[in-house]
Structures are given as structure tokens and as C-alpha cells.
């Protein structure tokens, strides 16, 4: 039986779907987290504790483990684990993009440097040291601009500034965010932030799978809610895209070029781009799959999940089809409207009853302390819809969301 190491942070939404994919494929899954599982002592062959902030150390631990437990594949399920997964794969000769490429893609500044050097369209950018005086740091930065941490994800800490006063406030706000106990950053990610030009336009997300250096586009999502700031909370994703075919082709071409420039060659890719009259602009190319529970919008071939595709690729198993189902599909990440504690949720049954709604998953728990963006990184839950057209799907998501009532005090 093939053995697969899954790198599963204790805070990831992705555990269930990746474990189900492992079960479907009949592989022996070894779960590696940053903290010991309660049953690790009883099942040392099936649990590992790894320091995801130390990829080389984690790779050494897994290499030692692999001497008695041969490993066929390693997969990091989200941003926190992709560099460690690449380090393990490189050490053991497993399928993955290289550590250098993944490390570059994980740091927004390094990624911009690489893409700009390759001549790809990226916003004008500057890296700023957090120890700088923000008033002085603002010199030479045009407005409007967007400030963002180098390594956080899910739009956490991404804030627009329209003038120097806002820039200074945002600069200090991000510096304070990086000091929070629930923020894990190290190296440059703890010492710098990125300031870049705000690019007006619509935003899309491209979900892809790299196989032998070739990028296969699995889905292109429209984000129909405007993302103009001051925060950039993602809400609705709908696929297929309603953009004209030629624009979609240009987005695909830019994503292919971006992966090549970064040196990404194997595994999932989640790229975010802005599109305006000048064409597509690359905001991010992350060497991982789509976050949260959003992958549940995607089914391939005869109903294969995205997680199964990713594991099949990592294991070197045949992939029947990379074609997404014909129906339109979408997800709404339910935003946290304000800080407080979640007391109760009403309207779930009404939301589920909306035509086209496939599921409503409330992931926040009762009494959970809720932190909205830009400091937070969680959602109240996810709404999933399927329908004949993207417009029908979007309408169903909005209708279902309107029926949910969250008591937050």
C-alpha cells in the first residue's frame, strides 16, 4: 500500500477533504501536524509532529521516518505547509516543485521580483522595513496603494491607503497585526511589508494543476463582489468565468508564464489576477490549492474531488480527467461582519432550501471569538451552490446568505 504524508496544520479547514481523498485512493495516510496528536503515542507509525517553520528540520525528521516507513508522496495542504512539503519531497526525491520555487512564491516580495524580472504584468511595488518611520516610508509610494504582509494569506492584513495619513495608519496596523499571538511569521515576513499600486479592475482566481511543468487550468473563478478596499474580503467565487473567451485565454497565458518564471513545475496552483483594460495583472501565484472549504465547488470527470486529483498527481497515479463538470458552481465565504462572540445562527434551513444551494456549512462554533478582517482570517462558514449558469449560482448564494442570521455580541 502506498504511504502518503499529509501536512495538516491543526488550524486548517482542509483535513476532512484530504483524508477522504486518501481513503478513496486506499493509501496509508501519515498525518503530520505542528502539534502532537493526542493519539500519537499509541500510533507512532501514523502520526508525526513537525515544525513547519523549520523545513530542513522537518525534512530530516521525515527522512528518518521514511527509512522504516517508505513514503510514496508528500502533500502540504495549505500555505503554512507548502515549503516544508517541498523540502521533504526534495530530500526524498518525491514529486513536487522545488524548494526554491515554492519559497519564492510564498514571499510576496520575492514573487513580485521574480515576475517583474520575467516581464510579467505586476503592480508597481516596494518592500518596506517595519522598523522604518512610516512617514518616511510613504515617500515614493504612489496612491492609491495597497499594503500587505509578505506571507499571510486569506487577505489577512491587506489594506488600501489613499493618502499619506492613511498609509501611516495602515503601516502601523499591519505592524501590530504581525505581533499578534495568532500570527505565525518569521524571517522577512516578520520584518517587512509590501506596498504596491492599487490596480482597479475585476478580480479572478485560477485554480490549476502543474504536471511535468505544464499548467492545466482546472477552473477560473469570477469574484463578482468588488474588491476595491479598504479591506479585501473575499466572498463569492463562481465558475465558469463570465469574462470573454479571449480575456480568459490571456489570463491563462499569464498564469502559465508566471508559473514558469517562478519555476513551479508540479502540484496545485492557486493564482489571483486583476483584469482591466490593460489586460491581466498577476497579484499572486500560490503553490497550493484553493483555501477554506472552497474546493467543494469543484468536481472533475465522474465526480472526482480536487483533493483526489492532487493526491493522484503526487502519488503518480493515472488521472482520468481534468475537466470540470459542466454545471456552473460557486461558493460564498461567509464574512465576519463585526468583532464579538457568536451566540447563535438562525436561518440555516431556509438557506439550504434556496433553489440551487448544495450545502451550507457553518464552521464557526458557538461562543467563538470572532475577529473580522483585516486582523482575522476565519469565516463564519461557507455556502455552496450549483446551477445552469453562473448568474443563477451567484443569485442563489446571495439569496441563501440573506436568509442567515448571526447573533454576535
Amino acid at each position, binding site marked *: 500500500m502506498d504511504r502518503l504524508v499529509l501536512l*495538516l*496544520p*491543526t*488550524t*486548517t*479547514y482542509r*483535513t*476532512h477533504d484530504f*483524508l477522504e481523498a486518501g*481513503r478513496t485512493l486506499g493509501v496509508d*495516510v501519515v*498525518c503530520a*501536524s505542528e502539534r502532537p*496528536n*493526542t*493519539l500519537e*503515542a*499509541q*500510533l507512532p507509525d*501514523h*502520526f508525526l509532529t513537525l515544525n513547519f517553520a523549520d523545513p530542513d528540520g522537518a525534512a530530516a525528521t521525515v527522512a528518518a521516518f521514511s527509512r522504516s516507513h517508505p513514503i510514496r508522496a508528500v502533500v502540504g495542504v*495549505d*500555505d*503554512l505547509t507548502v515549503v516544508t512539503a517541498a523540502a521533504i519531497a526534495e530530500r526524498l526525491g518525491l514529486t513536487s516543485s522545488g524548494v526554491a520555487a515554492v519559497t519564492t512564491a510564498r514571499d510576496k516580495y520575492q514573487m513580485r521580483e521574480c515576475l517583474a524580472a520575467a516581464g510579467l504584468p505586476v503592480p508597481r511595488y516596494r518592500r518596506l522595513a517595519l522598523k522604518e518611520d512610516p512617514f518616511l516610508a510613504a515617500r515614493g509610494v504612489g496612491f492609491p496603494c495597497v499594503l500587505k504582509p509578505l506571507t499571510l*494569506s*486569506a487577505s489577512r492584513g491587506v489594506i488600501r491607503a489613499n493618502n499619506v495619513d492613511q498609509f501611516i495608519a495602515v503601516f502601523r496596523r499591519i505592524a501590530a497585526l504581525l505581533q499578534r499571538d495568532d500570527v505565525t511569521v518569521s524571517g522577512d515576513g516578520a520584518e517587512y511589508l509590501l506596498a504596491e499600486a492599487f490596480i482597479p479592475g475585476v478580480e479572478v482566481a485560477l485554480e490549476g494543476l502543474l504536471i511535468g511543468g505544464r499548467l492545466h487550468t482546472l477552473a477560473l473563478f469570477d469574484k463578482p463582489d468588488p474588491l476595491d478596499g479598504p479591506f479585501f474580503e473575499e466572498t463569492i467565487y463562481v465558475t465558469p468565468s463570465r469574462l470573454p473567451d479571449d480575456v480568459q485565454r490571456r489570463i491563462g497565458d499569464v498564469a502559465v508564464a508566471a508559473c514558469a518564471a517562478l519555476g513551479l513545475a508540479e502540484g496545485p496552483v492557486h493564482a489571483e489576477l486583476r483584469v482591466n483594460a490593460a489586460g491581466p495583472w498577476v497579484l499572486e501565484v500560490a503553490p497550493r490549492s484553493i*483555501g*477554506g472549504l472552497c474546493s467543494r465547488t469543484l468536481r472533475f470527470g465522474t465526480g472526482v474531488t480536487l483533493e483526489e486529483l492532487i493526491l493522484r498527481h503526487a502519488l503518480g497515479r493515472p488521472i482520468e480527467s481534468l475537466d470540470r463538470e459542466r454545471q456552473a458552481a460557486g461558493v460564498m*465565504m461567509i464574512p465576519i461582519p463585526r468583532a464579538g462572540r457568536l451566540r447563535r445562527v438562525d436561518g440555516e434551513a431556509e438557506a439550504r432550501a434556496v433553489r440551487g444551494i448544495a450545502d451550507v456549512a*457553518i*464552521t464557526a*462554533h*458557538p*461562543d*467563538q471569538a470572532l475577529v473580522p478582517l483585516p486582523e482575522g*482570517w*476565519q*469565516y463564519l462558514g461557507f455556502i455552496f451552490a450549483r446551477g445552469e449558469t453562473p448568474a443563477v449560482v451567484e443569485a442563489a448564494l446571495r439569496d441563501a446568505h440573506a436568509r442567515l442570521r448571526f447573533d454576535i455580541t
Partner: protein
Amino acid sequence: MSDDLKTKVQELIDTMINPAVAGHGGYVELIDVQDSRVYLQMGGGCQGCGAADVTLKSGIERLIKEELPEVVEVLDTTDHASGSNPYYTAGKG
């Protein structure tokens, strides 16, 4: 047969599983055994925990199947959305 299996599963839960998950403020309760399928409920820190799937599928189910090969599946009946004190809480990363 089912009662006998139920007794063995309960012993495993009492001696191997609950002492371990208690370290995270959790517990596991045996609801029933039907047709060699074990139905469990997770409580305390396990209810709604971001690592509950790992603990159940890669831990509890594996332990039970190793000790009792006649068990075909372990199913979680927990309403994780109602867990008010999960040990780990998920976030989008």
C-alpha cells in the same frame, strides 16, 4: 455478537482512547455498534476541533480496527458545529 463487540469497543475507548484525548479536554462516547459499524460521538475539546477528523479517522478508527479487525467502519455522529470549546479552531490559510 454485536453486544460482545460493543463491550470490546467500550473497553478500548476506556483504556486507550479517552485517557489520550482527555489531554486536550476531549472525550469519546460509544453510541452504538450496528452491523460491525461503530458509531461514536466526540465531546469536550474534540467537538468542533480542527483536528477531530485526524484523530477520528487516522487515530481512533485505526486503533479500533487494529484491535478489533471485525469492525468495518467507525462513524462520527458528533454535531461538530455545536462544539463550544474546540481544542483547535480552523482558519483559511
